[in-house]
């Protein structure tokens, strides 16, 4: 009996604490008098503090909450099996708007959208074709193209590198654009800057296999550095921090962060090695989608974030701006206008349609 009590006490506390971690952060609304419009968000297994799209979607939702004075709340998934129940739970709250984040949620979103035609859905990073689902996707290859051009221009060793957390379309889209950007630089300047870690033709390259173990990211980045790379683009969530840690140890090595401005979001000691970041402006797109829905202008046409509409961008060079020559900045500006004007098209197998 004692054993039973002991083990159940331990198990209960484990479940309780695990439950604590999943608990949705309390609502961000200032208005407690239950406004008639509310929005719910379901994360993928990355959680709310992933320094990536869950976090920026949640920031967008919070911004919308203050801007439009609506009620918002997030439901955090911790594993693949949580996804569908969490979407159902979000729908069951009776809210008019449900935002799901991540391609893993596509099936669950489609199922709930079909079952509840009156509820409006939006999904980040994946295209779901239903009359009441608005896909919010980003053509990150456009911004990564600029980052690749920049990296090729800044690299002193003539070798740059990229790696991903897993071989998935939202990840490899960055890598495609990066490789193309370097190729463009090589064309224009008649040089041969080499990209390690991604082969656009075979659609295969270097991956850490997960988005958690920073130590793996560090070892992989170190291997790139050993082979001569001096600029690394990690597309692997927090695993990218390992690349930043490897860069700090070797003078002259920089990284390019993704999703948000690494200079701001990474711990302070990494600021000095962030060359730039490939930004994905999820929060603004979320605010816009909710705003449109409030005005009664909801539609299911995909929002594709591009350089043109500010959905994707490259960040400021911060501490490393001295490395970027004025001519290079000028060339990047030209390419940006050329991409916006459609003179240069950045495409790949993972590009949003």
């Amino acid at each position, binding site marked *: 009996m004692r054993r039973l009590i002991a083990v159940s006490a331990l198990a209960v506390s484990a479940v309780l604490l695990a439950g604590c971690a999943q608990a949705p952060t309390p609502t961000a609304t200032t208005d407690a008098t239950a406004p008639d419009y509310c929005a719910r968000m379901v994360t993928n297994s990355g959680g709310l*503090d992933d320094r990536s799209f869950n976090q920026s979607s949640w920031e967008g939702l919070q911004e919308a909450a203050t801007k439009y004075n609506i009620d918002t709340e997030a439901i955090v998934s911790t594993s693949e099996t949580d996804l569908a129940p969490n979407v159902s739970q979000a729908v069951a709250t009776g809210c008019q708007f449900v935002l799901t984040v991540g391609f893993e949620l596509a099936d669950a979103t489609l199922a709930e959208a079909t079952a509840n035609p009156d509820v409006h859905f939006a999904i980040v990073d994946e295209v779901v074709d239903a009359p009441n689902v608005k896909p919010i996707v980003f053509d990150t290859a456009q911004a990564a193209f600029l980052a690749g051009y920049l990296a090729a221009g800044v690299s002193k060793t003539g070798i740059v590198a990229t790696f991903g957390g897993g071989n998935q379309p939202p990840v490899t889209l960055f890598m495609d654009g990066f490789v193309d950007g370097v190729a463009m630089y090589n064309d224009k300047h008649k040089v041969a800057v080499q990209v390690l870690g991604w082969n656009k033709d075979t659609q295969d390259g270097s991956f850490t296999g997960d988005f958690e173990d920073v*130590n793996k990211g560090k070892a992989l980045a170190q*291997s790139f550095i050993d082979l001569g790379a001096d600029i690394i683009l990690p597309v692997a969530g927090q695993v990218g921090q390992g690349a930043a840690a490897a860069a700090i140890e070797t003078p002259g090595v920089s990284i390019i962060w993704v999703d948000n401005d690494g200079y701001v979001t990474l*711990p302070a000691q990494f600021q000095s090695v962030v060359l730039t970041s490939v930004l994905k402006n999820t929060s603004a797109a979320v605010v816009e989608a909710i705003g449109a829905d409030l005005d009664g202008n909801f539609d299911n046409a995909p929002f594709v974030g591009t350089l043109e509409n500010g959905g994707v961008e490259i960040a400021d060079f911060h501490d490393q701006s001295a490395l970027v020559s004025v001519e290079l900045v000028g060339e990047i500006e030209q390419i940006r206008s050329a991409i916006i004007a459609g003179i240069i098209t950045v495409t790949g197998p993972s590009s949003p349609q």
Partner: protein
Amino acid sequence: MSTLTQSSAPASTPIVKPAAQIRSWKIPITFGSFAVLSLFLFVVLGRGLRGELSTFRLSEGRDLIQLPEVALPTFATGVFVAVVLVLMAAASAWLVYRHTKIPIVLTILFALLFLVGFLAWAASGSTIPVPGLLIGTVTLSAPLIFGALGGVLSERAGVVNVAIEGQLLAGAFSSAVVASATGNPYLGLLAAMVAGALVSMVLAAFVLKYLVDQVIVGVVLNVLVIGLTSFLYSQVLAPSANLNSPDVFPRLNVPFLSEIPIIGPVLFRQTIIVYVMYVAIALVYFGLFRTKWGLRVRAVGEHPQAADTVGINVNRTRFIAVTLGGVISGFGGAYFTLGAVGAFNKEMTNGMGFIALAAVIFGQWHPIKATLAALLFGFATNLQNVLGIIGSPVPSEFMLMLPYVVTIFAVAGFVGRSRAPAADGKPYIK
């Protein structure tokens, strides 16, 4: 009377060990399969690589003594290696046929030679940075080695330690927080040890006092620590970043030793955590096999009744061993934050504790062998990194399996039968 004479007759005949008559063909079969594999890879597939060179870079730019790069002709090296491997496989078969024990040197030579052949084949037309490959191995293995040492200590005393993952994670979390809050990374190390010890004390208390199933407590503890650290991360660390920016230990070069070619950069240009690891390996080995305390620990793990009979307090000995194991594992957790990256992240140990547990078993519950098993895993992981970068025709998803496949083959082929301490996992009830 007659029965008595009958029964005493066989006893007087000399006892012949039947085991000596059984030939184990495992090693020749393993050697043979690897020899055939190398014939196929290096000779059949390697024909297309004629004229290519495989370059091994043996020095880093900052080394004092610069070794020249070694460029081997890919195909010729492959043929040479394959032929020698076939000969060695034949030799091992002959030795087994003659009932002679296969010397361990032969196994080591075989493995090394296969590795050289494999690297030469995989790196045709490109350069392999050998020091970098090995430095990365230490980086990836360090937390595994700490975890495995903690596991060995605990399991030798008869307590199954599934909670290594939790101990590593608790160590990583508390070292990051304490080192950031106090500004002193050494206090962070201390905190990591305390955290690891606390996790293992919970394990010990439930297992020794309440006799709960050891595997279940371990699994539940892992979930508990993951939940607790993730919760504290999002509620405490994420909002206040200054609690999660510890100073990373700098690399310290050991004078003279760090200038030895290859070995120097790999072993003697490390952080203090890795130097402590060397000491820990030696201490655990010495403690377990050369001290009275170690004899007692092993006694309670093998035969607690016998140990109790001679006056050893079984549960107290176990409690101390499990706690010490937690101290070592927790210290290893600090490697993630203070040794490698300088920030705690959710679930950042990502299953390394379970690989460490596997290293304990592959290493036959022996500290040195478990260390080697952990190093093998780290090496295979980093080899996969390097081969992926220099361009391998194998899809990356398959490459990511390499460390696991290598571990399974190494265990099945080269390591003998793994026998756990006899009382491992069994509570002692007087």
